[in-house]
């Protein structure tokens, strides 16, 4: 279904410029220190500190309302939109303090895929893929065509839509829409991709396609995925963070988390005793 060869050859050179610039070599793609988010006066996440290595997949699990989305959205400064939200602590993106960037630059580096597919309804499939570029003033037709094709191939959608690129994006099925949103996200060449329950609104077949994408993407991106599905976490991730009531309870290798967790609470959660 997917053209893995193209993926391997990769036009993802930018994401991999560490070889060209050895001094920019970094191991941690994301690290947080005492990261807290408050809505009004209530803490939704409380002093979360963790380090995420480059080119790994990190799953974030925990019962509903424990702060998974809140944590994820603080990494691309999405709380800007919510007036009552305040974020405290430190975030480093590739070892650089997030305060050194503005939100627009951060979001170009740190892409996001949402729970519910949200293609732009006024735009065609094609325009959705290149939306991030066009909206930022990039209009070279020939290159946009190439970028659209490339990214639709990476997201495994090309064969299904290549004959109807100009049709409205909302005419696609839910699973296709979500892959379109992934294509749109990678078209702006992020280095880190945040995914907030990207397949929870999808059928099993679409879900497995998304998981397959994540599996291949780890070569080029650092991925952080929120999921409430423990099997999914086990299938796709290298390490897993377990949040409970806004606190980070455990953060370790996924295999270990599901076989031999350090914390009692984690064990109860992954074995389905609550949640």
């Amino acid at each position, binding site marked *: 279904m997917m053209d893995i060869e193209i993926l391997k050859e990769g036009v993802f050179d930018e994401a991999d410029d560490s070889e060209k610039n050895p001094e920019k070599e970094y191991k941690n793609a994301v690290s947080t220190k005492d990261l807290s988010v408050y809505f009004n006066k209530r803490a939704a996440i409380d002093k979360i500190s963790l380090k995420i290595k480059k080119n790994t997949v990190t799953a974030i699990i925990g019962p509903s309302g424990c702060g998974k989305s809140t944590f994820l959205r603080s990494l*691309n400064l999405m709380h800007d939109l919510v*007036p009552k939200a305040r974020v405290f602590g430190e975030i480093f993106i590739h070892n650089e303090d997030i305060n050194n960037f503005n939100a627009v630059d*951060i*979001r*170009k580096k740190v892409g996001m895929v*949402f729970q519910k597919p949200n293609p732009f309804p006024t735009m065609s499939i094609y325009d959705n893929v290149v*939306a991030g570029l066009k909206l930022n003033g990039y209009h070279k037709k020939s290159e946009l065509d190439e970028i659209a094709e490339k990214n639709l191939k990476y997201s495994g959608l090309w064969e299904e839509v290549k004959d109807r690129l100009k049709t409205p994006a909302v005419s696609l099925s839910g699973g296709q829409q979500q892959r379109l949103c992934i294509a*749109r*996200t990678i078209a*702006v060449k992020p280095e880190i991709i945040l995914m907030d329950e990207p397949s929870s609104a999808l059928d099993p077949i679409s879900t497995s396609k998304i998981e397959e994408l994540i599996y291949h993407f780890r070569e080029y991106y650092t991925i952080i995925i929120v999921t409430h599905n423990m099997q999914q976490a086990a299938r796709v991730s290298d390490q897993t963070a377990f949040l409970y009531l806004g606190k980070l309870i455990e953060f370790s290798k996924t295999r270990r988390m599901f076989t031999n967790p350090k914390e009692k609470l984690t064990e109860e959660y992954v074995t389905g005793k609550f949640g």
Partner: protein
Amino acid sequence: MTTSSILKNPSNLRRRKITNSVMLMLCILAAIITILPLLYIFFYTTQSGVSSLNIDFFTQLPKPVGEEGGGMANAIAGSAILIGIGAMIGIPVGILSGIYISEYSKSFISTIVKFITDVLSGVPSIIVGIFAYGIIVIPMQRFSALAGGFALGILMIPTITKITEEMLKLVPQSLREASLALGVSRWKTTLKIVLKTASSGIVTGVLLAIARAAGETAPLLFTSFGNSFWQTSIDEPMAALPLQIFAYAISPYDDWHRQAWAGAFVLIFLVFVVNLIVRIVTRNKFSGNL
């Protein structure tokens, strides 16, 4: 009011049932007597106006008193010009203030703006006419299309502001987030995603404001003033369809009455079509899987 107090006398079932039927009948009657004048106005205007609605009506100038025939070409053109001037004021102020209320709704100022918008929509149009008179007619020392258009522009603002606000609020937050997450700045997101998604709704709001302005008479009485001649420069008095209808309606001539009915028919037709468009567009909006 508690439920039980209504039923304090539940034994009297028969009387309660009769009351029920009578009251429901009265409600139906209320609806009928509300619709009746509408239908009456509609048919009467059509019947009295259509016969004078010929090519002359749209192409000829008014004839002097006593002569039959002529038309309202200058008044129709005048209305178009006045509305054009009004739109240049009403559309930018309406849309941008609507954006402010909807997109920056956290602020205290936006609550005030929202409230004032509602209040402004209730300010009598003749007051706006007095305002335009003081601001434009007095300094220019003559009635002018500019003053009339200015008044119409002010009257268009609250309608456009409100519809813009409502339409923008219908745009799902997820689209704003999608755009921002791509590294698009907030203002570009607002203009190119949010406003664009809501554009058809906002266009209908503008149409609605225009249809209303087209029928406004009172604020033009002492701003645009009216004119029997062909006149297109905006610093001179200018004819307008409703002004012409008014002048003809209170005249003693049957032929003028017929022409006034024709003008009234044009206005009603405009109102009907615009409202129909608004209905269709706003109903089909944002259904589906957004």
